[in-house]
């Protein structure tokens, strides 16, 4: 199991994403990327969907990437990395290549939940050997905080503003992790930038499987969430503590909730520190919407515990 020391040592040994990129101060993305890449010891090829990470790390003629890296378009990172993986297999079969290389895709929630969903689904179904990491900051941050299907209910975004008629995003977010799990791929997990050891453990477990692996990692965007620049970690941590963003994994169909908060922290605690939810705390209607929000969080959490119970009990029965 990787710990902070081993990850730090690998960062010393080989800097796979170098400093000098232009991601915002306080952005959670580089922490996620470095943790993922430093957990994997094999050589890697990285594909990146269009988005903040891509734009901020590859401005020609510079590059922040010290590993082979490709960006093609917004909606096709899964197809792109599976093309790389297919070439690896073809070249290996033809005797032109003989070494172990791993394949990683990074994309934001817009590139994964929305425009890239078809490409991702196709790649998962075809069974390519790759790890897909959705760095989820819950809106189209690169283009100016427009709503995506990962944006939480009620959040203010530039295409779901808080207006007099419609206060923020009316719809609940899509449960993408469940959608990916429904592809019956070997390893699917949710992680958060607030727990990098948990993330590293999940990367390590993911890479122990052949076939498609998927991580949905919550990554604070201080600009879009309207939080303090030095609070990316505590804000994401509160998302986990309030059960808004459960840390769990589905390995070979078996659910495991990796962290169960001991006490019930109302989701309000997480919402009230973010400017995008400020409007909820100003009106009686906002209070009602808070209750609906909490109900949705509770329902999803209970569903998750049931899934864990059902799939783990299956184990016990067999034993």
């Amino acid at each position, binding site marked *: 199991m990787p710990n902070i020391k081993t990850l730090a040592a690998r960062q010393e040994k080989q800097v796979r994403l170098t400093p000098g990129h232009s991601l915002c101060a306080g952005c959670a993305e580089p922490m996620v990327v470095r943790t993922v890449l430093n957990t994997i010891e094999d050589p890697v090829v990285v594909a990146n969907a269009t988005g903040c990470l891509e734009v901020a790390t590859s*401005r020609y003629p510079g590059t922040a990437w010290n590993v082979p890296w490709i960006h093609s378009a917004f909606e096709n990172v899964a197809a792109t990395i599976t093309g790389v993986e297919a070439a690896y297999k073809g070249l290996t079969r033809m005797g032109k290549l003989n070494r172990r290389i791993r394949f990683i895709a990074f994309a934001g929630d817009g590139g994964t939940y929305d425009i890239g969903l078809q490409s991702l689904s196709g790649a998962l179904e075809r069974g390519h050997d790759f790890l897909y990491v959705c760095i989820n900051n819950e809106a189209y941050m690169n283009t100016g905080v427009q709503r995506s299907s990962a944006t939480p209910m009620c959040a203010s975004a530039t295409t779901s503003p808080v207006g007099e008629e419609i206060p923020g995003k009316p719809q609940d977010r899509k449960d993408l992790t469940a959608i990916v799990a429904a592809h019956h791929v070997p390893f699917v997990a949710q992680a958060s930038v607030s727990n990098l050891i948990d993330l590293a453990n999940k990367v390590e477990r993911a890479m122990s499987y052949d076939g498609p692996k998927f991580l949905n990692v919550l990554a604070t965007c201080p600009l879009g969430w309207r939080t303090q620049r030095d609070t990316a970690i505590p804000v994401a941590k509160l998302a986990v503590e309030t059960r808004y963003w459960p840390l769990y994994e589905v390995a070979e169909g078996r659910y495991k909730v990796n962290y169960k908060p001991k006490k019930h922290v109302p989701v309000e605690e997480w919402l009230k520190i973010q400017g995008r939810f400020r409007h909820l705390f100003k009106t009686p209607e906002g209070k009602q919407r808070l209750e609906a929000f909490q109900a949705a969080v509770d329902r999803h959490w209970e569903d998750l515990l049931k899934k864990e119970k059902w799939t783990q009990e299956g184990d016990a029965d067999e034993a």
Partner: protein
Amino acid sequence: MRKVMTGHKAVAEAMRQIEPDVVAVYPITPQSEIAEYYADYVHNGRVRTELVPVESEHSAMSACVGAAAAGGRVMTATASQGLALMVEILYIASSMRLPIVMALANRALSGPINIHCDHSDAYLARDAGAVQIFTESAQEAYDYTLIAQRLAERKGVSLPVIVNLDGFTLTHSVQVVEPLKDEVAKRFVGTYTPNYPLLDVEHPSTWGPFAMPDYYFELKRAQVAGMEAVPEAFLEIQKAYEEETGRKYQGYFEPYRLEDAERALVVMGSTAGTAKVVVDKLRDAGEKVGLLKMWMYRPFPYAAVAEALAGVKQVAVLDRALSFGAYGALYTDLAAAFVHRDQAPALVNYIYGLGGRDTTPEQLTQVFEEMSSVKPDQGLHYIGLRE
């Protein structure tokens, strides 16, 4: 050895002989048979290619981009809407200078939806930065698939190449084809050494960076240089093909009975076969008529075309697609070819064969007959259309 086969089978045979590292393909009428033949080769162990049966043409071209950047030799095939879906990524493939070879079974673009031939798909991709070759027969589709592979991978060119073959007319009709022996085809195509492959992990390269106004323009200019390298390479590879096979394809286009011709057609694809029959018949009757059939459409060989048609009095340019609000795309290229020349034929633009409409020898005979009385610059004329 001469065999009887469809255009699809001929292309699939060329692909089998090339044996690319990756084929990523999605079914669409009238291209699907290429995917089926290739899957059959893979599933029966006749090739070692990694087949990627993608969930859309968008992903087909995206996987081709990933595979080619990785360092693989990569092929695909599509038609019509499939190409439309690919076009976004085809621009990216060209900008990355990836030598992806693609058969395009030409089919009309929707709407209304139609599965039959015209060239609207090829024209849609006209400015995408890929080399485009048109073919008249299954034999040409086979030969040019091999030529395209070598052209695409030529250092200095390093661009995607589209081999067009008319949907159904060529893809599904059975013709006599003489494929090369496997070892001859393989020797002609040769081995491929990629530039800066992603899989060379010791030498990490960044593909598809973000370029602002300070560099974008220069990067696009570098793509022009790739296109500029095509014509010379095209002729050289044709010559090499002739030396290897005895088959003569010399030039960017086929001039057919153009010497001393006073009237001529310019056409692309299978309709050239019909036009040749008409030219022969009119020549037998003593009329000075000829034909120019394009092979290399992009880059367009302006000077050579103008030279070949310099002595012709009237030229009818046949476009098998509309360019709404403008002349047909081939016509505008012809017009550009002559714009700085003192002597130029009178040009007239005909639109024909949309959505698979048949074009008959009688109709082409009529085009030759009325050509001399049609005043140039009279807009579009239509062949075989009910007004």
